[in-house]
């Protein structure tokens, strides 16, 4: 990693749910200022948990960081409330959308602007989100619960952008979105990153896209980081190719032809 300024430094954290289930077993990662960092890994690897630990949303899940430290621009943030973190520019897009069901799409977005006191700024942000996701504009008066899955996902992302963040934690942004929109979401990420120097930490299953757009990647397996490196290197790693990009041995295999035996290899276990 180049000697860029590290904004977010996660240092050997352990996370325990319900005071018995140990989920993260010493995860460390760094996010440089203005970088796009991806966390990859299979179901249950602990990506979401890592993001929750950073944004301090673990408490509501009865989880806790029991070891290690998390620093934001050199400041320890384990004891800050999520609201404090948003004030400092860190916002998370939660997995599974979590739109406010009874609020309309527009109200959802406006709630995202709660921390911004400047009315003009909020209005401008709203317009920006609407230009990113025109679909939201047409559905603005509809209660979030009655919109389609993809519309809710857009709403969740848009809502987070309304806070004018400097670091965005994106948990599976592409889930449930049509391919074109996925493309657009990643373009937005790149856009914000380039134009507004927003830093991104994203957990993604769409490895292909994630590696294409990010600078650096971490691969997690059962609560540990098993591999990390610049995105380009990871994309060329044979194992990554085979297990995460589905192009092992050169050609992409048809989903119809995949072998039925269990092939997953564990790096560590």
């Amino acid at each position, binding site marked *: 990693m180049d000697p860029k300024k590290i904004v977010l430094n996660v240092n050997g954290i352990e996370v*325990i749910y*319900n*005071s*018995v*289930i*140990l989920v993260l077993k010493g995860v460390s990662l760094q996010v440089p200022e203005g970088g796009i960092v991806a966390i990859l890994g299979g179901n249950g690897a602990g990506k979401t948990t890592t993001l929750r630990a950073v944004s301090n949303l673990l408490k509501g899940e*009865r989880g806790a960081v029991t070891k290690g430290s998390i620093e934001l621009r050199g400041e320890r943030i384990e004891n800050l409330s999520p609201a404090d973190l948003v004030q400092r520019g860190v916002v998370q897009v939660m997995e599974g959308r979590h739109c406010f069901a009874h609020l309309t799409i527009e109200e959802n977005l406006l709630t995202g602007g709660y921390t911004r006191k400047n009315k003009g700024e909020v209005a401008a942000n709203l317009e920006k989100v609407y230009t990113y996701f025109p679909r939201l504009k047409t559905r603005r008066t509809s209660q979030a619960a009655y919109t389609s899955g993809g519309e809710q996902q857009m709403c969740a992302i848009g809502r987070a952008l309304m806070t004018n963040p400097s670091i965005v934690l994106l948990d599976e942004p592409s889930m449930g979105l049509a391919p074109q929109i996925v493309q657009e979401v990643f373009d937005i990420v790149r856009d914000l990153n380039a134009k507004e120097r927003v830093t991104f930490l994203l957990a993604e299953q769409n490895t292909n896209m994630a590696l294409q757009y990010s600078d650096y990647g971490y691969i997690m397996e059962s609560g540990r980081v098993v591999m990390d490196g610049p995105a380009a290197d990871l994309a060329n790693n044979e194992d990554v190719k085979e297990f995460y990009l589905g192009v092992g041995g050169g050609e992409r295999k048809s989903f119809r032809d995949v072998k039925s035996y269990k092939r997953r290899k564990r790096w560590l276990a």
Partner: protein
Amino acid sequence: MIYRENGQFKTTYRADQQVFPILQDRLFIGLVLITAFIIVPAMASEYWFRALLIPFLIMALAALGVNILVGYCGQISLGSGAFMAVGAYGAYNFFVRVPNMPLVPAILLGGLCATAFGILFGLPSLRVKGLYLAVATLAAQFFSDWMFLRVKWLVNDSPSGSVGVNNLQVFGMPIDSAVSKYWFCLVMLVVIAMLAKNLVRSAIGREWMAIRDMDVAAAVIGIRPMYAKLTAFAVSSFIVGVAGALWAFVYLGTWEPAAFSVDLSFRLLFMVIIGGLGSIIGAFYGAAFIVLLPIFLNQVLPALASLVGITISTAGLSHAELMIFGALIVWFLIVEPHGLAKLWATGKQKLRLWPFPH
């Protein structure tokens, strides 16, 4: 690693489906049963029986019934007191009006009266959900309060509305000593708890839970919400009704409608929540907490106070009792929001890993 399941492989699904698949659990429950049936009767004093154990058993039974409706089927009920009252007065009417009516059938018939009443007031649940349903069940509560005060026939024309029974017998054995009452309630409780446990781990129990967790999805996989909800109301109010009959017959002897007031309904709901929604064993913990803790505080606080050399007035003690009780509820919830049963389960999980922390 005192408590572990390593090495206890299940070779059949049947073995795995047992209520207590782990050996330690079986030993433990066996011990509990032996204690309950043999050791406790040998040791407990009259006071323990009459003032603590019997009400605990009956309330545990009632809480179990409420738990089926609230905990398993997710239908909030604040009318459990009414179902108990209907059970009690129903059993009473069968008992005094039908010549030579034996006790147990009278109680069960009382339970059936409660079932009918429960289904009637459960009908709105087909349309009204969540907290809003509380209105329907409270309507049942206040209606029954009124009914047993106003309809003379139901109280056998007693002018004041208070009624009583005596000469209780089961198969010719009188149920009047403290121990016999205890055993009687214990047997009822154990039998009903087993049946209830069977129900909740069978298809019907899964239907209830499915309706509770997500009713639309449940309908899509073929569960009929109406059937599931009404059976939950029926089974629940039957058990609650039986508990009501026991409460009236065995514990109170003579009672007035106020014995089944809305306070009782609330207390039953609290038992279920603090014990653990959707857990049979939780009903026991909840009943113990709500029934026994205030009594315990009431007796221990003066002793504690005198120990540290302060004398608190009786009124002060009562208020301190309320405060401590309230604070304990909050504290337990913070430690484990899913109730005492979950706390117990987590404890077991820790034991499983012991001495390692994770």
